[in-house]
């Protein structure tokens, strides 16, 4: 019993700490408040690569911590994203926006392992710092 409790706690600790927002508007408000960069993940139903990101990559502790500390994560369905001007020919596609909704760099297309994705996020963080200066 104790072991079981320990396990659940550990899992809890290591689980992804960030929550996805579902509206770009909310994300912008939060980004202004916390002075963070918006990370838009465009997904669609039945997308295996997106599932991989959610269930494997973002479960990585380092990656999820990094996202939580420096980004405001938003998940938008492909059709809605299109209306917002965020085009994607496939999913997942990641857009990075500043607090005003301006695009930072190019969009990331496709899933990646936690390690690779983390490296990319670091690049975007740098870019956003440059642009906000």
């Amino acid at each position, binding site marked *: 019993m104790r072991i079981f409790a320990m396990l659940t706690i550990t899992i809890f600790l290591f689980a992804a700490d960030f929550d996805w927002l579902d509206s770009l508007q909310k994300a912008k408000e939060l980004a202004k408040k916390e002075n963070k960069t918006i990370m838009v993940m465009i997904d669609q139903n039945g997308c295996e690569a997106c599932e*991989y990101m959610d269930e494997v990559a973002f479960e990585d502790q380092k990656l999820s911590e990094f996202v939580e500390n420096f980004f405001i994560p938003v998940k938008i369905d492909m059709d809605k994203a299109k209306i917002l001007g965020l085009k994607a020919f*496939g999913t997942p596609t990641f857009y990075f926006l500043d607090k005003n909704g301006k695009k930072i760099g190019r969009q990331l297309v496709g899933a990646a392992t936690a390690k690779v994705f983390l490296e990319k996020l670091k690049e975007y963080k740098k870019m956003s710092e440059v642009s906000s200066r």
Partner: protein
Amino acid sequence: MKKFLTIFTIFFYSYLFAFTPAGLDREIIEPEVAFKPSIVRDKNAFLVQIKLAKDIYLYQDKVKVELLEPKKKNLLLKLPPAEDFHDDKVYFNELKFKIPFSELPEGKIKLKLSYQGCSKAGLCYAPMEKDYVFEIKKSQKSEIFEDKKQESMASEEEKIASTLKNESLWVVLITFFGFGLLLALTPCVFPMIPILSSIIVGAKDITVKKAFVYSLVYVLAMALTYTIAGVLAGLFGSNIQAAFQNPWIISIFALIFVALAFSMFGFYEIGLPASLQTKLAKKSDEAGSKGGVIGVAIMGFLSALIVGPCVAPPLAGALIYIGQTGDALLGGLALFSLSMGMGAPLLLIGTGAGKFMPKPGPWMTGVSRVFGVVMLGVAIWMVERILPSSITLLLWAALFIGSAIYLRVFENIEKGSHWFEYLKKSVGMLMFLYGLFLFFGAFTGANNLFDPLKVLKQKVSIVTKTTKKESNFKKIYSIKELQEILKNSEKPVLLDFYADWCVSCKELEHITFADERVKKEFEDFTLVKADVTANSEENRELLKKFSLFGPPAILFFKDGKELKKYRVIGYKEPELFLKILKDVKKSLAK
């Protein structure tokens, strides 16, 4: 967990390409490159092909082809087996499948191919779709039609209904014309020949042209009747012809035929009142044929309703089609061309009757009398549906013996008479003898005009027969009773739709069901007879439940479900019926 591990390894591999410094999505290829769809015309199908780039895969359940024009419809696809990939059914490299023309309407069509897939590199593409426009021509369709013919054993009626659904207008019309021609060879149309011939022979100053016009009017009226009756029946789902099988109506018509026969014998002359005749004659001076045209049309109309109540497969098929789709126009056209096919031989005979009997003379009275006798025969044939067979046989006997006497069978022929007198006497003698046999048959329980001496023949096998039950059909009248039987029967159920007024039903009963081999096969079935003679509300419901338009029809059931493939509509000879029974058993044994 295993799933993620496998994906994980894949992504390690994709890591090499996915985010290379030179560009983010260099190895993530554009959808246009990843998927290359095409639809091309093959021999009698469309070949759909989606070529996939390396590491691109396609979800099986996302592949769809929709018909956009002329009617929106999702097509059922026969897709090849797919690979299992992370619990999904997918295709790699390429997907190829065919859509046969037979599943598509004719003319201009628009297809929408939609599909969705992913790349192993970690990207799922958006759903994609592409429209294609094609034209399917008649000739290509008819090729398939041939193919389909070889495909066996959809029930005849279903086949016809599907012919209507799938084929082009012309193919449908020609097919139905053909069915009509075949129908003309059945007893259904037979009684119409003397009616038409007598009209033509009875007409004054008959010319070939006039004979043709009369025949045409007659056939057109008949065709029109079938068409209208058919369309109405289809739209309202009721059996209009059954309504005309009412004993009163049949009696009235039998009387009309008797009256016509007597007029043929010269007792009196039936015609429009003189005043009306002259009026009409005045109106149609140059086209002298018009006088009787209306009468002929009425005769055609009535003959169709009364004389031809055969529920033959083509008719039923067309009606089912109309009933199901409500496409009364196509159904009506098909019925019209069916009846025209049925009438085509009549047209020839009618015209011939005018052509080969050009000169009026004393011989014409003789011919008229022959037709008079035939018309009496028609009258008896009609009352057969409402009178017990012993009485009708007696009537037949009277007709034959009477005709024989009329031919002066028992008077001496003067020496040196024309050879025709001898011929007449011989024919008369034969008729007399046949009449005697019928007379005998009427009192010994024969029920078939062509087998009056049945009793004598049966003496031999009578011992074995009495041990077997003669009629082991259970009679039912409503859906409820049927369901009861279906529920409780372990054997497959054979349901025979029957009515006293249905001639083909009687043929089935006396010829097909009476066949010893058929009887033997029957032992493996629970036999049920749905008696719809009364044409009551319950009867009609029963017919409607199975989309039938009237008897005879034989349906097979197993475990409460109908085996639609083996449905039998109309009369079937013992051999054919035997084959169907065996096929049913075979299919159940599997």
